[in-house]
């Protein structure tokens, strides 16, 4: 699958983690950009269209949840796959969040960057197939 054209936005206030995720996605052939809080991420997302958004949940200024809500309210991001990363013990609420916000996948920290890459690829394949089905 040709993923070179796919653009991923990685949002995490934990800079080190954002960087290593970015590193893994870069290695997998994604075109990536990082943001360190929700507000900056939203700004970046509105400037450029991303194919997939990977965001941490707990961040200053704008949380991952708020970012998801903001993105989903935009038509250009209504179908965009979103992956939520969380360091909090919110595992029990994840199914609800996934349903309400249309979050496609969640990862509890600590997570494996390669698993993120794999999920990103799978999600992009699924989204790419959807229009054909319609």
């Amino acid at each position, binding site marked *: 699958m040709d993923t070179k054209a796919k653009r991923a936005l990685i949002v995490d206030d934990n800079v*080190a*983690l954002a960087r290593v995720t970015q590193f893994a996605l870069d290695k997998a052939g994604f075109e990536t950009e990082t943001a360190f809080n929700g507000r900056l991420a939203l700004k970046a997302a509105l400037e450029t269209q991303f194919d997939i958004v990977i965001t941490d949940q*707990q961040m200053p*200024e704008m949380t991952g949840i708020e970012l998801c809500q903001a993105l989903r309210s935009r038509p250009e991001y209504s179908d965009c796959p979103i992956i939520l990363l969380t360091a*909090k013990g919110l595992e029990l609420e994840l199914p609800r969040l996934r349903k309400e916000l249309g979050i496609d996948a969640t990862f509890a920290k600590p*997570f*494996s960057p*390669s698993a993120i890459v794999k999920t990103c690829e799978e999600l992009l394949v699924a989204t790419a197939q959807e229009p054909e089905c319609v």
Partner: protein
Amino acid sequence: MFRSSSNLGFPRKIVAYYLLFCLIAVSWLAMGMLMTAHKVLDSRATSACLARLGKTAAALELEYLRNGPNDFQKILQSSQWTNGLQNCSVVSLEGTVLASTDVNVVGQSAIDHKGQQLRWGNVSGIQYQEDQGQTISEYRVPLIAHEDHFGSLRISVQQLNSWSTLAEIARVAPAVILVPLGLIVAGGVLLARLTSPLAQVDSQLRHIALQRPTVDLILQPLPAKDAISIGWNRLVNALNQDHSSGTADALSSRLAEAVAAREQNGMQDILHNFPDGIAVTDGEGRITFANRAIEALLGSETTDEELAGIEFEGQLINKSSSEALRDSVFEGAAVLCPVVTEIERLGDGGGQRTLRVARLPMENENQSGHVWSVRDITQQKLTEKVRDQFIDAATHELRTPLSNIKAYAETLVTCEEIEVEQQKKFCNIINSEVTRLARFVDDLLCISSMETGSIGIQRQRTISSRLFEEVLAKVQPLMKQKSIDFDVQLPEKMEDIQVDKDKIVAVLVNLLGNAAKYTPAKGRVSLRVNIDEEQLQFAVVDTGVGISAEEITKVFDKFFRSDDPRVQEEVGTGLGLSLAREVIRMHGGEITVESQIDQGTTFMATIPI
């Protein structure tokens, strides 16, 4: 004794004793009378005899002077006729009977009897037993005329014996004996009549005494004769009326009520002093009982009496902030089902209280209703919240470095095409994350150990300027990152101080780090330090989000984190201030905080050096 005398009633005994004593007394009197009569009769016979003796002697002496002794027999015979003289003889000095009432002995020698000598004035005598066994007293008077003693006059009298006395008395005996006997018998009859009601009362009481205690009392009225019968009958009537009107039943039920009330009072005391609120409501939900905890819960001004009849459920949740809650709590629950729920309620002080309310149905024959148990679990909830905050913070603090370590380590392992420089960089990151993790665990252990007293501080001579250089080196990057105006005022003369340097540095870094964290970008943070001979004083002043009055008392509590969203979005464990206070306390100093919400916060510490 009791058994043998039980045949004879008390009143009959009285009569019997009365008769016995009367008979003894009468017998005693009769004997006394017999003896007295005997003496009197005896003495009377003697006196009469002596009187005749004297009279006859005088007559004989006169006759002797006139005519000589020849007509003595005539005189004696005439006296015999006129005076009833008997057994009388005139005896000459020679012992010959000159004259006698018994003509057969005249001219014969007089018999001198032997016996007890008697003497009455000039009268001498002798008492002797006759052949037939009768006692005879013979009295002798000398016959003297002109000093011529010419003989003696002898008279014999038969002494009265007991039988002759009895024979004498027998003539008056019917009057003497029958009258007292008649009176005694009459007295006995009267006494028996008077005590006959007593006899009946006595027999009834005796009967009751022998009955078992459980058997009902049955008392018979007496024929009304006197005060005792009338009194007894009134008593029996009163008792019977009590029986018939059920007074005994009423009494026993009152007694049972009193016992139950006493037990109930004991239970009520226990319920009143129970720390949980306990209330009982009737079928309509109105309060019939509420303990002190409920009174305190529903408002300090409400008393037990005022609560009675009030609709409880409304009272409990009418001040609740949530309308939806009010509808959902008990409305849906079936009346007969136990319900346990937690409700939020505005307390007296205006703060939200969390109550756990249990409602249990209570069914008995008299009434249906509910028992309510209300427990204030606000404190418990707070503790749970603090614990949750800690777990939340700890999870984040642990997971963030762990995530980084795992991500970098895995990337190092899985990616084959990584440059050496990149690998080194990744390893450094892993190293620093491990350090961060270790520090968090250290902090946690440190505060725990300091609280339990297992570790202390180690004061050492410290160059104060070096200490502050170390602090500033650590916090200045944080200030720069948020473009905060960081103002440091150190004293001109920096004395050496005796403190646990590492821990004081940690405290200052923590306070300044907090100031940087909770002050918006381009705000202002000041550190003012003063050192004199005795103490080190410093103040950390920021223009940050501030702390509300409600929360300011808790900021030094372990794991406490403010509810303010501006604080929540920052990462923190809630351990920093707790640790700072512990370190300063162990130095013998103190730390205080002043804050104005949205204006800023000032921490001031004084540490003896």
